[in-house]
């Protein structure tokens, strides 16, 4: 018998960047050492603020909509699952289209793997691993009533606007009481551009300018251990 699923909440302001969620997620038997949750630094040159990012389990999942092989399925609890292996053609459409940057296609396994809200644990009435170990309550699994009672100074919302795309998610994020939706938009990035535009490419260009992406490989640079100085004598790696 499958236990009733509860709500998942992300409370960004509480994140301390410890990555216990990432460490815990990697322990799962189904993905064996690879985490399905990520912790991003927002602007490390300015502040230690970090944010955890896991699958938001969209009510109308963009990843499933763009999948040409119909390999990504949502179950009756609203959980969006990894791609079905027999169907997946590892084309990476999901990876490119997801507005939250969650799915990752493992080209070796020929499959897209992502967070399934710890189906093995949640279906047995337990909390997902990340929300169990999170030391600060930045990740919380419980009922809406519990959350409202515990954190009266913020409120959960699940509506996001990415440019023109509206997305409603199964996972809630905690925001100040006067916020109604999360808006992710960068109008000035598209200023003067006509017609359809590759937003991701535009972002990448922008990051290149700021030195966050390796111009040769187009890979993001790890923060601690890279060199972006022009002075070769002092270069680190």
């Amino acid at each position, binding site marked *: 018998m499958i236990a009733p699923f509860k709500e998942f909440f992300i409370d960004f302001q*509480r994140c301390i960047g410890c990555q216990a969620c990432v460490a*815990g997620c*990697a322990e799962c038997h189904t993905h064996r050492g690879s985490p399905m949750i990520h912790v991003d630094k927002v602007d490390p*040159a300015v502040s230690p603020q970090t944010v955890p990012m896991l699958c938001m389990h969209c009510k109308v999942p963009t990843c499933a909509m763009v999948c040409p092989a119909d390999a990504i399925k949502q179950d009756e609890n609203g959980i969006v699952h990894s791609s079905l292996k027999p169907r997946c053609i590892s084309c990476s459409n999901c990876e490119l289209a997801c507005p939250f940057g969650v799915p990752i296609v493992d080209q070796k396994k020929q499959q897209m793997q992502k967070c399934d809200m710890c189906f093995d644990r949640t279906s047995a009435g337990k909390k997902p691993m990340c929300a169990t170990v999170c030391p600060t*309550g930045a990740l919380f699994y419980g009922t809406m009533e519990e959350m409202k009672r515990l954190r009266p100074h913020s409120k959960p919302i699940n509506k996001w606007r990415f440019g023109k795309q509206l997305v409603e998610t199964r996972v809630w994020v905690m925001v100040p009481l006067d916020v109604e939706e999360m808006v992710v938009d960068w109008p000035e990035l598209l200023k003067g551009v006509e017609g359809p535009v590759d937003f991701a490419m535009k972002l990448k260009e922008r990051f290149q300018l700021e030195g966050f992406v390796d111009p040769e490989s187009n890979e993001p640079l790890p923060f601690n251990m890279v060199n*972006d100085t022009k002075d070769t004598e002092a270069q680190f790696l």
Partner: protein
Amino acid sequence: MARLSLPQQDYINEYGPHVSDLPVTGWLSKPEPDAMVKTHCCFCGMQCGIKLAVKDGKVIGFEPWEEFPFNEGRLCPKGVKRYMQTHHPDRLTDPLIRTEHGFRKATWDEAFDLLISKIKSIQERHGKNAFSMMSGVSLSNEKSYLVGKFARLALQTANLDYNGRFCMVSAGGGNKKAFGVDRAANSWADIPKAEVIFLSGTNVSECFPTLTHYIWKARDNGAKMIVVDPRVTPIARTADYHLQIRPGTDSALGQALLHELIANDWVDHDFVANYCTGWDQLRESVKECTPEWAGHICGVTPQLIREVARVWGTAKTSFLMHARGIEQQIKGVENVLSLINIVLVTGRIGREGCGYGTITGQGNGQGGREHGHKCDQLPGNRDIENPAHREHICKVWGITDEELPHKGKTAVELFEAIQAKEIHGMINICCNPLVSHPDTNFLREAVQGMEFFCVIDFFMSETARYADLVLPGSLHEEEEGTSTTAEGRVVRIRAAVDPPGNARTDTSILLEIARRLGKEKLFSYKDNEDIFNELRRASSGGTADYGGITWKRIEDEMGVFWPCPTEGHPGTPRLFEDRRSFHPDGKFHFHATPYRQSFEVPNEEYPLYYTSGRSVFHYLSGTQTRRIKFLVEKAPGPVCEMHPMLATKLGFQNRQIVTVESRRGTITVPLQITEGIRPDTVFVPYHWAENLAANQLTVRALDPISKMPEFKVAACRVRSATKEEADRLRADWKNLSQEALA
């Protein structure tokens, strides 16, 4: 002689640290466990509950222990990954004897024979006290107690001290002066009930991540948070009031806050008059300490100090916590007292939602410092120079007063005595001073001059490389026992598995040495519970009274808070509910803390403050965590944090390699530019050794009372690294992620 017989690289290649992130079963075939062992995490004083999954005598994973009341399943990444240490390929499995060509494996008989002959030879030539012992508080209560008894009765030396001397002795010193007892005054359960949370010199989110939840619970209830720290730590980022003061100026801030409390009459006069002593002198001592005066010293605005004083002064409930930031200074005890003063003056202690406590850093930093491996202390937090205290312990141990040594040297003084050739030998257990001692270049020289050096450890720590004899000991999960968390809760540590190969439990090693020294009669224990029961008797009647705590009670009640004098006693989560301190007069003692400068302050030659601390991904000297790949990937090595204004002035760019210099040493590290630090201060985390040791730069100056070295304040300067330095850093850095062979 304790010298390396091979180049450093050979030790690294042979013994690590290597990184490994593979469960003992591999990832593909993790079987169902035979048992889930309810125990605690070994990293930090929170001692979070955790269940270790065991199959066929191996730890194969973990499960959160959601029923344990403190952490309810919550863990930090060190806790999640700690099971990876148990069967790590670097584990020491045989005794090792130093030869001219590195270590050779030896039998236990051979190892014990060598050790005993060296102890006897040194003590015959130079006296009993010429052989010393250093210990550590990652050890359980049973082991800590045993080390205290072992050093004094088996080695018969006064010179035993422990690494708490580098950690929380200043807190203990301040607490004993003010309260007559050394323990957090409240359990953490009082934090969410407080209106104001005051955090001073504590990077809670990185050093005690699971405690963050309690602070957030308070904030969910509307609490205001005040943080004092030269850096914007993850917890300071969310503070309502962040006093980003200069390193080493904490007591000036404390005095100004007290000045404001008095000036605005935010004082609990009833409490001060009836339950405290020393008020008149204290009031007089802060007369001139205006926010303007302190603002000038601390480098923050007087307005901010006034505002913080108002928030603190007008609150009904509050919880003040501090940690190493204020304690690891030559004014450690004064800094602690200056904060205790602002707690006592408002009378907010010993009641629901009114709390105070130091946040103990090491795994068993609390319990370990109560039961007698401190040079001046006997079990139950007794004083080794107090005749009545000595009499009690002599009775429990069945010895005469002459057989019990007196006060020995404190840790830094002990190594100074080794350098001065007053002490010639040492057994070092659970301590890696080559990382954690201040001025590591001095420390290395001292160790190298020792005639005989024995290290008991589970991995080849950087210090162990210098040993004449290395004995393979046991991990937290390999022995039964107890530890005491930072809130004073005694918890049960369970043996999940046996030590690997020929390694033995630390207890059995110490007992065998005692036996071979002819002291078997004093050290005959059935098992570790038997040791605990003797500890109970020894602590009985002391301030840290464990008399009524049994292993069974701890298991049944999910921990028991000391003092707990009798088996019918419920334990004491909150101290001072009767408004009485543990002093004979029952009063809380105020102490004036006139401000004085740190040992070293910046000047023209060394214009910057140098301070150090921890990362969330590593534990203390890193002997364990620098071997776990996940943690190493997140924090591979030290970096120097610097404010962009300072970097611009010095012409540095982000991630450039720089060399930080003090009067004692240099360290070459990549630069990490961040606005989260004062522009006159640089920060380097301290978990690494040798060329990467932040403590190459720190000072050996000590707090006069606690003998705590000043890790948190030194003067330094920063320049671009030379090509040789940068090349050396690249080579050292490469070693940090050397993979273990499967």
